Each structure stands twice: as C-alpha cells, then as structure tokens.
C-alpha cells in the first residue's frame, strides 16, 4: 500500500542520497492489492537488472520496488526500458490503426531508428461506457501547474460555461463546453468546494468522466474582496477611456473577470 506512511519512509531514505533518489519522491495515491504486489515483484525484477551498478543502484532498487504502481507493463516490450516511474503509466502501443500505421510508415523511412512514442501510450485507457447509469461522476480537474482533482468521485459539478452555469451529473450527455471566468463548484455529499476559474474547457464523456481544464483556479476563500472592487473600478475606468480596439478588448476582459469575481464572492 502506498500511503502516507510509505511516503514518509521514502522521505527518510532519500535523505541519504538527495541528488538522485529525490527524484523518486512525490507519489500519487494508489493502492495495490496483494496479488498485484506479487506481480509487481516479478515485474520489478526485470528492469532492475538493466540498470548499471551505479552507487545509487541499491538505493534505487529499494525505492523502485515500492514505487512501481499497477501498470500494464507486464505485456509491453517496453519492459526493457528502465524503471517505471509512478506517473508515467505506460500502455503498450495500441492495436488501433493509428499507431500501427504510423509505425509502418516510420519503418519504411527510418528503419534503424525506433519510432517515437505518442501520447496515447502514456495514458491509462479510459473505461468504456457502462450499460447502467453510474452513481458517481469521475472528475479530473487540471491546471497547468497542478492536477487539482484527479479521478475524484463526486456527485455533481457546476461549471461556468459561456452559456451560463452548467450542472454536470453522472450520466450527462457527452459535451464539450467552453468556460468563461466564473465559479466552479464540486459537490460531494454535503461537501461543496468552490473555485474561481479563469476560462478553460470542460469535456464530459459518455462514461461519466468529466475533464475540466482551466488556466488558473483559486479557491474562493483566497480571494480578497477589496482587491476585486478596486480592480473592477479600475477596469471600468479603462474601458471608458479606451481608444483603440485592443485596449477596449483588454479592458472589457478585465471588467468581465472582475464582475464575475464579484458575483462569485457574493453569490
């Protein structure tokens, strides 16, 4: 089980060799069943032999044992590559036509170079559409510098689409929604988490997976209302005194964002 305790244990081992083993810190929360752990033991024996015996090798081996998550690398020929890090779960190249056609075309042109990998090989495949309505919505809320929510099971999400606040429940029809600056709220039981996001996109898939991508998101309690008012008045002034189109557009954006902030704070 990779949990807090393991993480702190790892934290203490890495102090011995900071510049190398440090790179192995920072684990996602993932749970391994007993059978998977046994499977992992056998997998992890494979790649470890290929690491050259550097001074960090023993450290690496210990840490790598604990770090290997459930990944489908058992099947992949890429087991020949070095230790799998927990974030890059690698899936074997799709049997789908796109990848194999690409590999074919590649081999004709550059037979001596390995074809480059493509992003789909780094992703876990999404589950197919279930036949019955799922009870929970799985939400991935990502920002450029962090993944706020990753596969969180929630009851409902309300996103600020450009056409207004849109509520997403499990079983929602597949949608691509463009978002405008506004309030995003995540409802889990009686818990409501509110964020103010500055535009982005929201995808809802047929398997009750919702991906929300935002450029910037702030929890509501970190916003200072006084600053918001000040910004609003400043931008309204700029809008009134703007001369060129681009200035007007910028000022308009500022006004929009600040008024959205205002209504988010009050509403």
């Amino acid at each position, binding site marked *: 089980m990779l949990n807090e305790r393991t993480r702190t244990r790892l934290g203490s081992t890495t102090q011995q060799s900071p*510049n*190398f083993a*440090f*790179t192995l810190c*920072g684990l996602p929360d993932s749970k391994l069943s007993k059978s998977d752990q046994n499977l992992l033991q056998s997998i992890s024996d494979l790649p470890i032999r290929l*690491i050259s015996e550097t001074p960090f090798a023993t450290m690496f081996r210990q840490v790598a044992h604990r770090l290997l998550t459930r990944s489908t690398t058992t099947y992949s020929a890429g087991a020949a*590559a*070095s*230790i799998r*890090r927990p*974030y*890059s779960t690698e899936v074997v190249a*799709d049997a*789908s*036509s*796109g990848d194999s*056609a690409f590999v074919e*075309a*590649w081999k*004709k*042109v*550059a037979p001596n*170079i*390995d074809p*480059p*990998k*493509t*992003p*789909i090989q*780094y*992703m876990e495949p*999404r589950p197919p559409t279930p036949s019955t309505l799922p009870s929970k919505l799985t939400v*991935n809320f*990502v*920002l*450029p*510098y*962090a*993944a706020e929510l990753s596969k969180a099971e929630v009851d409902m999400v309300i996103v600020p*689409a*450009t*056409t207004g606040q*849109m509520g997403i429940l499990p079983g929602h*029809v*597949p*949608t*691509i*929604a*463009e*978002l*405008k600056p506004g309030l995003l709220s995540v409802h889990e039981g009686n818990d409501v988490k509110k964020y103010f996001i500055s535009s*982005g*996109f929201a*995808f809802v*898939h*047929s398997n009750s*997976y919702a*991906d929300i*991508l935002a*450029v910037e998101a702030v929890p509501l309690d970190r916003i200072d209302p006084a600053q918001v008012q000040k910004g609003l008045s400043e931008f309204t002034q700029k809008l009134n005194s703007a001369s060129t189109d681009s200035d007007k557009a910028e000022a308009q954006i500022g006004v929009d964002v600040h008024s959205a902030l205002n209504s988010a704070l009050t509403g």
Partner: protein
Amino acid sequence: MAMAALRKEGRRFAPLVSSPNPINAIRSTLAPTEEQVGLGVRSISTQVVRNRMKSVRNIQKITKAMKMVAASKLRAIQVRAENSRGLWQPFTALLGDTPSVNVKKNVIVTISSDKGLCGGINSTSVKISRALHKINSGPDTQCKYVVLGEKGKAQLIRDSKKDIELIMTELQKNFLNYTQVSVLADDILKNVEFDALRIVFNKFQSVVSFLPTTATVLSPEIVERESEAGGKIGDLDSYEIEGGETKSEVLQNLAEFQFSCVMFNAVLENACSEQGARMSAMDSSSRNAGDMLDRLTLTYNRTRQASITTELIEIISGASALEG
C-alpha cells in the same frame, strides 16, 4: 655526494628546458659522466605529466560541479513537469491520438535545448524530426519546421534551411510558465499555416531514460474531416457543443488551447530531459576524468621512480669508477 644533492635541488627547481630528444636520454644513462643532458630529460617528462594531471583534475572538478547544478535544476523542474502531465490527457481522451493522419500542411515543432553538454537528446529530436519530415513530405503535401532552441536550430539549419518557418531561442531564460508558452503558441498559430502540428520532444521518464515522443495537434478543419470519416475521433459528433455561436468556433478555440497545453507539457518535459541528460553526461565525464587521472598518476610515478633509479645508478657507477 654533495654533487648529487646539488643535482637533485637543480632538478626540482629547474625551469622548463627545451626537450632534448629521447636518444640523448638513453645515451646519458649509459654514459654516467654526462650529467647535464640526463638532468634535462628527467625533469621534462614528469613536468609534462604533472601538467596534464592538473588540467584533468580541473576538468573533473568542473564536470562534478556541473552535475550538481544540473541535479538541483532537475529537482526543481521535475515537480512542475509531473504536475503538468494531467493537462494533455483530456485532449487525448477526447480526440484520440492520430500520428498517422494524412494532411497537406504539416508543421513539425522541434523542441531542443539552448545549451550543450547534454548528451544525445538534441540529436535524437532532430533525427526524429527529419524522419517525420520524410514520412510527411510527398508530391502534394508540404512539411515545415518550427524550431525551439539553439541546438536544434544549429543542426536543422544545415540541411533544411528553406523549410524552417520560425525559430525561437532562449526559452528558459525566464522561468518557464504557462503564460510564456501560450504566447509562444499564439505566435506559432498566427504565423504558420498548418493542418497538423507535430511536436517532437523528449519525454522525461527517469533520470537515465528519456523517450522521444511526438504529439499531434490537428487543426479544427481536419478534426471535422476525421470525425466525419470515422475512426478514432469518430464519436466527436456525439458531443454536444456548449458555448460559442458555432461549432467551428468552439473547435477553433479547442485546437488552440490543446496546442498551448501540449506545448507547455512538452517544453517542461524536454527541459527535464535536458537536465537529466546533462547530469548523466557530466557524471560519466567526471568518471572518465577520474580514470584518466589514475592512469596518469601511474605513469607519473613510474617516470619519477625511473629517474630516481637512473640517478642512483649514475652515482653508484660514478663512485665505483672513482674507487676502482
């Protein structure tokens, strides 16, 4: 005895004399009364080796320091690269991954580093870009390059100068953040016509392994075309579009956003790979320097001992010549 002592002193403080040829040296050991010639040869060989050792030792120190610097930079940027990995996944989940798409206007965005001494990652990226260029340039298709980074530019400008549309360097001068990358992406989108953008970069898997990767971003028209044709993006039609007046407007925004997100992740991953590659390159360099130093030390000791032995022989044979 006094002569020998004086001679020893002279040798230690003798400045670098122009080296007599080796034949002279051999003759001097056989003719023990020829002191000056033998003296010159001895001091030079150890001096040369000593200089060499000093420079190798300096190189070792420098590469060790560079490795430490790369390690600390790697630590900082790795966290950010990993956090940004969630950003491109929703797009791949929605639109699939179509590296083999057949389009008229291809643009290959090659991401490379600005500084050198980072192993083979830049050459790998350039090799992959060239191969992609070959795959995608046919009679009715065209393929252009957009190069990010000095090293990629230096390699590609040699043979593909006319195909390069845009060159951007000094990305990492300021702290890499999403705003900067989105401005960059905006630049590319405005100035380059494309049907498909293929971003080539090195994905950071671990400190010792970097995977060359290519991510494909399609223009909205091609997305529509592919979704009508079926295949992986086939079920795009089943998605309702919220927002914007028309579907194409939303798809346009989607494509631009996708490009900037994928670029952001790609640039961070490449920077990570660069630091990791530099770390291992500098590590092997210091190790090589250490090996060289060991060998030089052995040579130095051997030379030194040989010269001491020679001197002893000379003294002893000189002394015995005096007696007998």
